[in-house]
């Protein structure tokens, strides 16, 4: 590939295209109306539709979590029965993982930003993109049906043989998640092809943003791991429908095999849930430090390394499941390797901030929270990966705290950072900076109050997934519950000022953060076709030492296939493509 790219130098007439301050027509003002939205193939609108859906599910999952925490205020049963409790934590987990976290950054933010950062008009397969959204909706409908026709009480992991024999409507739920998997796969296919084929003239692999690299790595995980989840859930469905017995010890099958199947997807899936967040961190840290990213290739390639190593470690979820001790040792060893590329990333981010002119705007504030919380989550992950320690900690609140630190402290913080970062681009409106910072601080405090005590009680032996507990843990549980209320308040504040911003927000300039990245070089919000010209790239997205004018080049007289333009000063660049 590299050879044909360098041997293919073309001379292009380019000129500067300054993004319009007050665009008359944007993607939001064109093709409006319910039907136009529902049948749109525009990646920006599909991104927003995803965004609305995942926020809805985040709200549902969050409400369920508050119910759980409220029940746990007292050691004995207060208002939820044991069975209902099991159903609620199952739904909370399944909704948060499959309906919120997995699609949160790739399908919602990624869909919106990816083509903008590539300078193309849309993803490679716009109709497939829309299809993937509807598949997501169908999967969601199946899940809702499952909830209202018996519920599911297996936990989000659907372990056999329990899931094959318990009551409720497990089949609907697994079918729902099965269907959802295809939506995830299609997004992955779309992103990989788009990044390969639709880059702007001059945009070589070393000039795409690190967010794109992270989406690329994520998409690779999605296409390699998700099909295994699909077959797992299909087998489980068949297990319930036809009693095929492959996972059922009563029929001669092997339940531990189910766990291999499941975690071969779900460990890589936790990287689906965090690697896109890494991408956002790189973008925001560079933008708000006004500095070239430190170690571009180290960060880009460590995403791929994480994607790869992530496939080798799934057995660390099965240390106590009856797996052979040989496998236990191998998995424990391999798990430690994950720490290396992750550490490389953290190092490079901190090095990027070093001597930068740091501007603690809201997105950056969230990224600071990310760095702090994700470190704790990552280190406790390594602890859990140590075989002997995990025998003690497995299935305790320590594990619960670990994955909430990475998923919520990591990914949700990155998601919120990204949401605040790209909000002006999406809607052309600014939000209230003061309240945004308040909310961030409230969330940070609430989060730690909720989950730090869980580490402590977990290491003292409080098992997970119980609706009552020994009295000695009450103090920790109460702290945790109050923390979760604070968290809830934080999210309510966000909802309030974002709504306000939508309705009454100040108009956003095209590039409120002074970023060099490509998506900021078009109007806010962008026009229906993203750019009015064919963008040409000669600098990387983090070259803060170059003047802004060099980031706004487009092919002279190209009009991107639309409308006419005035010609002003032109210059010639060499673009290798």
């Amino acid at each position, binding site marked *: 590939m590299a050879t044909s790219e360098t041997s293919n130098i073309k001379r292009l007439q380019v000129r500067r295209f300054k993004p319009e301050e007050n665009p008359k027509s944007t993607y939001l003002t064109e093709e409006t109306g319910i039907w136009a939205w529902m049948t749109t193939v525009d990646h920006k609108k599909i991104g927003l539709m995803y965004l609305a859906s995942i926020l809805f599910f985040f709200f549902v999952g969050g409400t369920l979590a508050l119910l759980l925490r409220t029940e746990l205020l007292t050691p004995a049963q207060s208002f939820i029965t044991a069975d209902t409790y099991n159903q609620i934590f199952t739904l909370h987990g399944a909704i948060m993982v499959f309906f919120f976290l997995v699609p949160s950054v790739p399908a919602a933010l990624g869909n919106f930003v990816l083509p903008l950062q590539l300078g193309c008009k849309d993803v490679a397969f716009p109709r497939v993109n829309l299809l993937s959204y509807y598949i997501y909706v169908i999967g969601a409908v199946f899940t809702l049906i499952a909830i209202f026709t018996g519920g599911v009480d297996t936990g989000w992991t659907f372990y056999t043989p329990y899931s094959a024999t318990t009551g409720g409507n497990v089949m609907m739920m697994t079918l729902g998640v099965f269907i959802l998997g295809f939506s995830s*796969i299609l997004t992955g296919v779309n992103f990989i*092809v788009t990044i390969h*084929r639709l880059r702007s003239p001059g945009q070589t692999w070393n000039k795409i943003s690190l967010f794109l690299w992270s989406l690329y790595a994520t998409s690779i995980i999605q*296409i390699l791991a998700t099909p295994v989840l699909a*077959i797992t859930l299909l087998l489980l469905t068949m297990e319930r429908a*036809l009693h*095929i017995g492959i996972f059922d010890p009563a029929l001669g099958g092997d339940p531990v095999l189910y766990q291999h199947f499941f975690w071969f997807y779900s460990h890589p899936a936790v990287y689906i849930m965090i690697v896109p967040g890494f991408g956002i961190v790189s973008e925001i840290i560079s933008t708000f430090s006004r500095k070239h990213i430190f170690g571009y290739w180290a960060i880009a390639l460590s995403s791929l390394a994480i994607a790869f190593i992530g496939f080798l470690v799934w057995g660390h979820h099965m240390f106590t499941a009856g797996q052979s001790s040989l496998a236990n040792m191998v998995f424990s060893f391999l798990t430690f390797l994950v720490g290396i590329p992750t550490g490389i990333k953290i190092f490079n981010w901190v090095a990027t901030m070093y001597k930068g002119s740091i501007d603690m705007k809201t997105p950056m504030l969230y990224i600071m929270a990310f760095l702090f919380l994700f470190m704790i989550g990552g280190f406790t992950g390594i602890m859990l990966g140590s075989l002997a320690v995990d025998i003690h900690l497995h299935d305790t609140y320590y594990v619960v705290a670990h994955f909430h630190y990475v998923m919520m402290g990591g990914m949700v913080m990155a998601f919120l950072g990204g949401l605040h970062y790209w909000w002006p681009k999406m809607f052309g409106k600014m939000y209230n900076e003061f309240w945004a910072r308040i909310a961030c601080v409230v969330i940070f405090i609430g989060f730690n109050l909720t989950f730090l005590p869980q580490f402590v009680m977990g290491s003292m032996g409080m098992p997970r997934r119980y609706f009552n507990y020994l009295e000695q843990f009450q103090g920790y549980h109460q702290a945790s519950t109050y923390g979760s209320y604070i968290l809830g308040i934080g999210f309510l504040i966000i909802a309030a000022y974002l709504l306000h911003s939508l309705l009454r927000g100040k108009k956003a300039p095209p590039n409120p953060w002074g970023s060099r990245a490509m998506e900021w070089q078009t109007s806010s919000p962008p026009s229906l076709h993203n750019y009015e010209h064919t963008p040409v790239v000669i600098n990387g997205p983090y070259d803060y030492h170059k003047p802004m004018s060099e980031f706004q080049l487009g092919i002279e007289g190209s009009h991107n296939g639309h409308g006419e333009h005035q010609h002003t000063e032109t210059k010639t660049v060499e673009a290798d493509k």
Partner: protein
Amino acid sequence: MAQTSANVKKGDHVQHHFVDSDQQFESAKMGMWIFLVTEILFFGGLFLAYIVFRSWYPELYLMASDHLDTFWGAVNTVVLIGSSLTVAMAIRSAQLNQQKGLIINLAITIALACIFMVIKYFEYTHKFDLGIYPGAYYAYDGIAHDKANIFFSIYYMMTGLHGIHVLIGIGLMIWLIVRARKGHFHSEYYTPVEITGLYWHLVDIIWIFLFPLLYLID
């Protein structure tokens, strides 16, 4: 890659976000290959179950595969290879603007796919008559092994899922014929034929592995 050949004019079939026909074709093909990767791992899960249980119970596989008819398995292999050949010929016809050849080759492919399904149907019903059902419903005592049901669960899952892929392929091919009759395909644009062909060949490849693994255990 991304060589943009200026002499290819932007035809009707090129969607607005592609620069030219070539970029669109290459993108579609790459997209299909990525999708095939997911198909391979999808079936890969079943192959894993097959391998694990075979490593545990080698004698079970020996006994059970005696009850699969090698002859019909081989016939089906030949049928699918033939259909792969006709799909390849169909693509060739499209590349050469041979409207008629395209339709005929697709029709033969569909016919072969149907033959495959009919043979599979008879194999299945024959087993059902004997009481060879998957898992818990297994009710045949001709195999002296208490895990025989597991072998047939795996057999039914693998061949069943493969059969569903064949049915999907038939559907796709019918759709191609409908479009071909409307003259949608020509040497500049035959992307759907090409990527359906890729899909069909993969279905063939999976059968190429299923055949020796299930039928040919001596």
